[in-house]
């Protein structure tokens, strides 16, 4: 028994949790959820202090997937850093592509051709849908239903097949370039994309019937992990978390970039702020992304996909500092870049939305049942490599 207690002490020491904390004279139990727990998606560890089934405190421990992307930025040239952007968040690499090239373009004053902007919007929104599909499948899987992930991956597969010929990869895209995109899209890509929009529109009602209206699922999500707007502000939560708490804050509208102001689409919000609210927001976002894609495919102009004077690998960014933010699948992706006029950036800071979104988990999970911790974690849509960077 003594040995057992000592191991517990060692494992909780790092998280700063007192293993023998008494709550009202009751002995509490400390358990480690992760780093290999299936619902943490990647290697996240949460040290939970339980009083019976209730969570007294939850402390996320991160850093298991840390790769020091910010240091890598300083030893590579501006363009050599592009492939890193595909690897920060493996589910939404185009969001990161966009934030980084956007920062370089804003710093150097590079104009992007019209056609390239349309290609960025089409591929970026396709990537948002594929990211949401993985979240959807995995979230329902966490809650105990196996079937939806098979459907979700079938749909995601179609998006990967669309993006593969133009970007050259299926997962870690490095497709955008300062001044445009790496390759032009073909007419068959546009035709297939329109066919996908039509196909996906028919799938969404099926998801609603299969999952959204399922009473078992709703009982696991409704009223669980209610996030107030004030808490969102204290922790800097963005994306579907903030919109699920009824604040229509979307970077595509708040800090308009690219050509998003030319399309007709809504910012879905939900007034409940619970796990179900965040679920509804993401499901509605997929439908809105389909609308944007459809409009963009129908209106894409002819022209070049990359400017003629596009930066070469040894290109030197002009002196100065710049901040550029885009709306990623998980919230506000920001790149803060400082250049001293050398071919390497002097400093690159990556603002990942998941980092801020996870930091509120400890406060949000307090007082919930252990099973609800899984539901809350899933509703935050965590991608650990993006959080650890």
């Amino acid at each position, binding site marked *: 028994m003594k040995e057992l207690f000592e191991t517990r002490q060692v494992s909780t020491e790092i998280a700063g949790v007192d293993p023998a904390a008494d709550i009202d004279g009751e002995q509490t139990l400390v358990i480690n959820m992760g780093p290999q727990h299936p619902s943490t998606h990647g290697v996240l560890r949460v040290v939970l202090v339980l009083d019976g089934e209730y969570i007294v405190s939850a402390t996320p421990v991160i*850093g298991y997937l840390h790769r020091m992307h910010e240091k890598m930025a*300083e030893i590579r040239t501006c363009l050599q850093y592009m492939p890193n952007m595909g690897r920060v968040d493996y589910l939404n690499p185009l969001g990161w592509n966009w934030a980084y090239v956007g920062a370089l373009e804003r710093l150097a004053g590079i104009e992007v051709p019209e056609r390239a902007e349309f290609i960025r919007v089409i591929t970026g929104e396709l990537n948002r849908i594929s990211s949401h599909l993985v979240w959807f499948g995995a979230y329902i899987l966490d809650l105990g239903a196996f079937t939806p992930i098979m459907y979700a991956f079938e749909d995601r597969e179609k998006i990967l097949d669309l993006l593969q010929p133009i970007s050259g990869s299926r997962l870690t895209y490095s497709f955008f370039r300062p001044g445009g995109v790496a390759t032009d899209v073909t007419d068959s890509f546009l035709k297939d994309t329109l066919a996908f929009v039509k196909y996906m529109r028919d799938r969404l009602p099926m998801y609603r019937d299969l999952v959204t209206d399922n009473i078992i699922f709703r009982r696991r999500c409704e009223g669980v992990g209610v996030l107030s707007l004030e808490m969102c*502000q204290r922790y800097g939560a963005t994306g579907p978390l903030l919109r699920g708490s009824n604040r229509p804050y979307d970077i595509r509208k*708040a800090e308009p970039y690219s050509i998003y102001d030319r399309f007709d689409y809504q910012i879905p919000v939900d007034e409940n702020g619970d796990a179900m609210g965040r679920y509804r927001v993401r499901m509605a976002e997929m439908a809105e992304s389909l609308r944007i894609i459809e409009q963009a495919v129908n209106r894409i102009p002819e022209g070049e996909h990359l400017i003629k004077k596009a930066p070469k690998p040894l290109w030197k960014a002009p*002196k100065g500092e710049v*901040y550029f*933010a885009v709306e990623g699948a998980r919230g506000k992706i920001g790149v*803060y870049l400082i250049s001293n006029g050398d071919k390497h950036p002097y*400093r690159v800071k990556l603002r990942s939305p998941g980092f801020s979104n996870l930091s509120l988990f400890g406060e949000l999970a307090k007082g919930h049942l252990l099973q609800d911790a899984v539901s809350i974690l899933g509703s935050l849509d965590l991608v650990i490599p993006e959080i650890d960077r």
Partner: protein
Amino acid sequence: MTPKWMDGLKTLCRCRHTFQKKGVTWGLFLSPDTLLDAARHLFQAGFFLEDISGLDSANGFAAIYHLSAYSGADRVTLYVILPHDDPQVPSISAVYNGAEWHERETMDFFGIHFTGHPDPKPLLLPEDMTDHPLIKEDKERALLRDLLDPGDIVERDPDFLLFEECDSPIDELKPQAQGPDAIERA
């Protein structure tokens, strides 16, 4: 026009920027003891904290805070310049809880100490690591005035000489700015 939240805020230098060009509307240089006050002002005005980053330069470290408004394209950057030998800045985690992790990360990467932090432990790097990977070697360090773009300087403390002719490190640059008399003077 100066925004309302800036009223009564003690700053070393206020710089206005064009959002379209830089992604920032205001850049404020603060002394460490006014940082918490600035954070409170911005929280009241409905800003949220985006990130905290460090910067290593020939003038010392800079702790850089980005805050953004929900209402639209409005971003504020707060700069606190710190000496290399004892970089200390108050933690703003009492106002912005999310700052707790950002500050731990900056501590990992630069060794900047955030005083009053509730849990100052390494976040992303191993517990036993003593190096700070983003600290540059002396010859690689650039001057802050070559890195940061002042935009339009609206108001400047007469002792704040960062964007004037200077090559001296922070300690010689404005020795009194961190002392107790700095508050009275400002």
